[in-house]
């Protein structure tokens, strides 16, 4: 009797394997010939556009929204559609349905004439301009900011240099504060070997390939393993859809303004300016202890880009009394996008913001 059921199971397994092999061939062809994955589909308006800067206002998906508008700040190395990968896999859509009025800062590749943009441009001009625009459009006196990775660093610098400003809540997602905690990145840009001045003076704009290569070198097997996984899962439409969206996001890494790259390397990576307090932007010292608004920091347990040692000191450094750190399973990207983020991070973020957005 048990032999018969074993046989049946075995036959079932073989049938599955054959079916999947056939689907792999058919869908693999579709995969290879398909254009770029459709991303960033949640309806939005571009409400501010200046050089590399874009500010989106997403159209509401709830009948009643929280009083305080929400501004998301994307990292300067990547496109903001990671916040809005696909319907059902979109953090923006989740927040809109949870009743938030959502704005997002996105970056276009800086052009050669923007090579002199620096940290001051981003934190004393771009973010304040977006903040003004959000306040004007919402008619509210304050707002919440959510910054991801380097977007979190820019948000922190903005918050520390605009302490009398309209910021009500600040949420940072995998944001490095102790840059000496990013050991590999630091090693590769060791000032004994890496001449940042010569590099920036020659290239002007740091090429996207250079940035993407840096990320890839942190996990050199990831791309190959990812391709093998997608081949194996080719029969699984949801997996392939998600893979294509993430792949597109990775492929569309942005170049960086040379001056901004130089300053980030010198002031943050070499001098660890956010930890030592030596950083100043546009002549204004950046002292994180001056931040007193409620702060949330979401950290990924297996983050290889911004490891825990790099992000951990954020809460110790800020002067806020209402502050919280959440460490969630996942990596640097899966913290904010993908099936795990839907279950883990988004509900926590929405709940934290909701309590503070009335």
């Amino acid at each position: 009797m048990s032999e018969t059921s074993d046989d049946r199971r075995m036959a079932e397994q073989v049938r599955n394997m054959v079916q999947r092999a056939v689907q792999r061939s058919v869908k693999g062809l579709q995969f290879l010939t398909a254009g770029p994955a459709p991303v960033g589909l949640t309806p939005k308006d571009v409400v501010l556009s200046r050089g590399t800067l874009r500010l989106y206002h997403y159209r509401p998906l709830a009948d009643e929204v929280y009083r305080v508008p929400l501004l998301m700040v994307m990292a300067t190395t990547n496109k903001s559609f990671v916040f809005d990968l696909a319907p059902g896999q979109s953090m923006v859509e989740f927040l809109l349905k949870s009743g938030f009025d959502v704005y997002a800062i996105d970056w276009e590749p800086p052009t050669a004439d923007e090579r002199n943009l620096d940290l001051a441009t981003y934190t004393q001009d771009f973010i304040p301009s977006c903040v003004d625009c959000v306040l004007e459009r919402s008619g509210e006196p304050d707002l919440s900011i959510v910054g991801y990775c380097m977007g979190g660093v820019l948000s922190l610098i903005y918050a520390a240099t605009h302490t009398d400003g309209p910021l009500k809540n600040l949420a940072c997602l995998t944001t490095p504060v102790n840059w000496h905690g990013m050991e590999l990145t630091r090693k590769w840009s060791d000032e004994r070997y890496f001449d940042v001045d010569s590099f920036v003076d020659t290239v002007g704009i740091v090429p996207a390939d250079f940035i993407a290569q840096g990320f890839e070198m942190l996990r050199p097997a990831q791309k190959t393993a990812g391709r093998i996984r997608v081949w194996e899962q080719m029969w699984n439409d949801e997996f392939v859809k998600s893979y294509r969206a993430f792949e597109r996001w990775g492929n569309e890494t942005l170049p960086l303004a040379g001056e901004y790259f130089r300053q980030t390397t010198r002031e943050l990576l070499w001098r660890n300016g956010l930890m030592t307090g030596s950083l100043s932007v546009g002549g204004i010292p950046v002292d994180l202890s001056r931040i007193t608004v409620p702060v949330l920091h979401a950290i990924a347990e297996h983050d290889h880009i911004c490891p825990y040692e790099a992000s951990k000191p954020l809460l110790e450094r800020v002067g806020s009394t209402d502050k919280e750190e959440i460490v969630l399973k996942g990596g640097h990207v899966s913290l904010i996008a993908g099936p795990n983020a839907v279950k883990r991070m988004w509900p926590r973020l929405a709940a934290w913001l909701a309590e503070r957005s009335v």
Partner: protein
Amino acid sequence: MAEQRRFDAIELFREVLTQWEREFDALANRFMGTDEFSNVMNQVQRLQLELQRRFNQHVAEQLANFNVPSREDVIRLGETLRDVESRLGRIERLLKDMAEPAVAGSNPARPAGPPRTRQPPSRTRSANQNPAKESAP
């Protein structure tokens, strides 16, 4: 119990792949985390930059010979245009502000949207649990 732990070739393949990825990354990171690697990597990069710089210089000289603007000239032109554009933007905003006297309660920059009266679930729950307390003056 033994029956439940059946052989699954696909599952085994996934485990092997994950294990390979983890070990390869760890090994590569150990190798790439050395001073020697950083030194060699940056030397190669310096060489590439030097070649690029010489090539740029050569192209710029040739363009000058043909009396054609170089990339640097075009970038400078772009910078000037951007500066003019931002000044124009400021003037435009100023003129708009002067031309549209503030009318109480109307703001063309403010789109109509849903009411901003939403309450967090915790407050809605407590209000539902104790309606008498909520309605008390």
